[in-house]
């Protein structure tokens, strides 16, 4: 589905990604772990199309297309979704209006009519139930005054609505209480299929207990320095990063 080859990126002369290689196939769940500041959010932002970075080398291919030549909204239309580490607030725009606009813009890009209001509403209801959110969220301003956990749950609600091919979850588990973690994990598992892939950026094993990864990668100083199966995450949880850092200095 997505092939990242030798991806290098910098901000103001500072190299943040130093040659990332990663391939994710349909149906797979990849976990990306790594110490703070290692470049995990940068990688997800670049996949989503944020322009703050200078791509100094490498390529990203998404379903046979050069992803780097597409605008962020075109990437979204192709089925890339990013659950933000820090979701932004948009005052006065309700959750329902926002997601409705998002869905209809994607449909428009495929030459489809806007979704029928009744269908849209039914779908929103279904997803609020799935994520055990109160209906009242739908009429609140997007993320405005939401608690940290509510913002994260709202990201997964949007993911459930948009049904992306590739979902990138950037520390979606941070700030969630124990019940919310299970609920969000359930939402992610509902999306899993042979056709979809998920990239989970996390610091902890706990989300991976619910959403079992096929691969685990460790990002350190802008490089994937170790890859393995789900046991790697357990090993990291037990041993920390020191041994990885030691191997890579």
């Amino acid at each position, binding site marked *: 589905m997505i092939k990242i080859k030798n991806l290098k990126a910098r901000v103001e002369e500072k190299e943040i990604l130093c040659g990332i290689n990663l391939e994710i196939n349909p149906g797979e769940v990849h976990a990306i772990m790594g110490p703070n500041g290692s470049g995990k959010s940068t990688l997800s932002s670049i996949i*989503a199309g944020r322009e703050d970075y200078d791509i100094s080398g490498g390529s990203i291919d998404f379903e046979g297309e050069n992803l780097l030549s597409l605008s*962020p909204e075109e990437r979204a239309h192709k089925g890339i979704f990013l659950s933000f580490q820090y979701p932004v607030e*948009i005052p006065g*725009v309700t959750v329902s209006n926002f997601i409705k*606009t*998002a869905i209809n813009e994607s449909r428009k890009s495929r030459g489809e009519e806007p979704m029928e209001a009744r269908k849209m509403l039914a779908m929103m209801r279904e997803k609020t139930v799935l994520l055990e959110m109160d209906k009242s969220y739908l009429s609140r301003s997007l993320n405005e005054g939401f608690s940290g956990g509510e913002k994260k749950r709202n990201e997964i609600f949007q993911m459930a609505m948009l049904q992306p091919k590739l979902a990138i979850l950037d520390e979606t588990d941070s700030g969630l209480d124990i019940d919310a973690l299970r609920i969000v994990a359930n939402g992610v598992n509902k999306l899993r299929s042979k056709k979809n892939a998920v990239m989970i950026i996390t610091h902890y094993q706990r989300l991976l207990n619910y959403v079992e990864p096929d691969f685990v990668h460790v990002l350190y100083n802008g490089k994937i320095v170790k890859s393995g199966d789900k046991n790697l995450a357990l090993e990291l949880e037990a041993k920390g990063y020191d041994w990885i850092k030691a191997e890579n200095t």
Partner: protein
Amino acid sequence: MNDEIIDEITASEYKYGFTTEIESETVPPGLNEDVIRLISSKKNEPKWMLEWRLDAFQTWLKMVEPNWPNVNYQKPDFQTISYYSAPKQKKALDSLDEVDPELLKTFEKLGISLDEQKRLSGVAMDVVVDSVSVATTFKETLAEKGIIFCSMSEAIQEHPELVRKHLGTVVPKRDNFYAALNSAVFTDGSFCYIPKGVHCPMELSTYFRINEAGTGQFERTLLVADEGSYVSYLEGCTAPSRDENQLHAAVVELVAMEKAEIKYSTVQNWFPGDAEGKGGVFNFVTKRGICERNSKISWTQVETGSAVTWKYPSCILKGDNSVGEFYSVAVTNNFQQADTGTKMIHLGKNTKSTIISKGISAGRSQNSYRGLVRVGARAENARNFSQCDSLLMGDKCGAHTFPYIEAQHPSAQIEHEATTSKIGEDQIFYCNQRGIGTEEAIALIVNGYCKEVLNQLPMEFAVEAQKLLEVSLEGSVG
């Protein structure tokens, strides 16, 4: 009684930045008593009307154009203005092909129907059955309730006692330079009277006004809501209005008698000039309402047009327990300049006012909010809440806030909140990531930002206004 109140207000408020020192200046020729006599006789007006105009003219001669608004423009040459041209019937065009393609593009973006496009751009039309029948039913329904809704000229002929009683009682001839000029030379406008206890069953829109004959550049509107009545009035149009007249100086007066409620909504979209700032309408308007006991006046405006706007819809809360509201969205783009806001004058006890102003500046435009909240010495328990927000797009535009507060009663509660924000890259990227392109993202964010104001508009008008905001801000973030 009203006279005294108005005097008191107009005499003192100018201290607060609504005017500058009077300098003597010779008034340019181009307008004289004979011209006014001619206007009056062409319109077959009664003698009192002519005298009223002449008095206004004498007052105007002694006044100078104000300099205090935060706007720059080439002062109009009053000599070159033709005041007495009969209501202009725009030359009818034969088809839409003759209409400026830019204008047609905008019509399309606003989703205005073909028939409507023709009407607005002055294309000769066969009778559109629909709109004629709508207009007729409309007129019949109003007549049943005793509501008068007609042009000002017609009102002067048909209802002289009402006009004479109220004209100039809220905005006196001497109020300001442009109000005086308007009083001397106004050619037409709208008149509306809602009888006691009548709840006007539909939105009164200038669109449906019968006998509309091109209102010209000096429009005069008078709206009287008698005791216990209610009316919602819509003015303007979301379609861009082009006009060869550069100067527009309208006067709007609202009278809300005891327990009456007036909701006055405006969408203003005069031609703002091209992207280089050339052309464009100067819109210098005086709008004011007076509230008797337990009455309410609510102004809602969405302003996107004009090269230069200068406008402060105001409420004089004369009666006890009266309520004044002002909800405004003012958008400036390219080289537009707007100095707009409101004045809430609390005179009665337990009077309440709310001001919600949302300024949006883009391009190289300048957007100023100027508001006065005054609590008089007798206004026990007056309350005001003001919120003035500015949204900046890009770094070449300007937003300015000039709040003036004066409380003469110790019980006054006045709250003022102000914010300035920018549309963040983060917000736009967030929208982009969800598949929403940058233009749509800006429209979404701006509509969210203006929501409190748009919510005040009647439903269909709000939808149009939203589209209008989108169109006005197109291309404003590069």
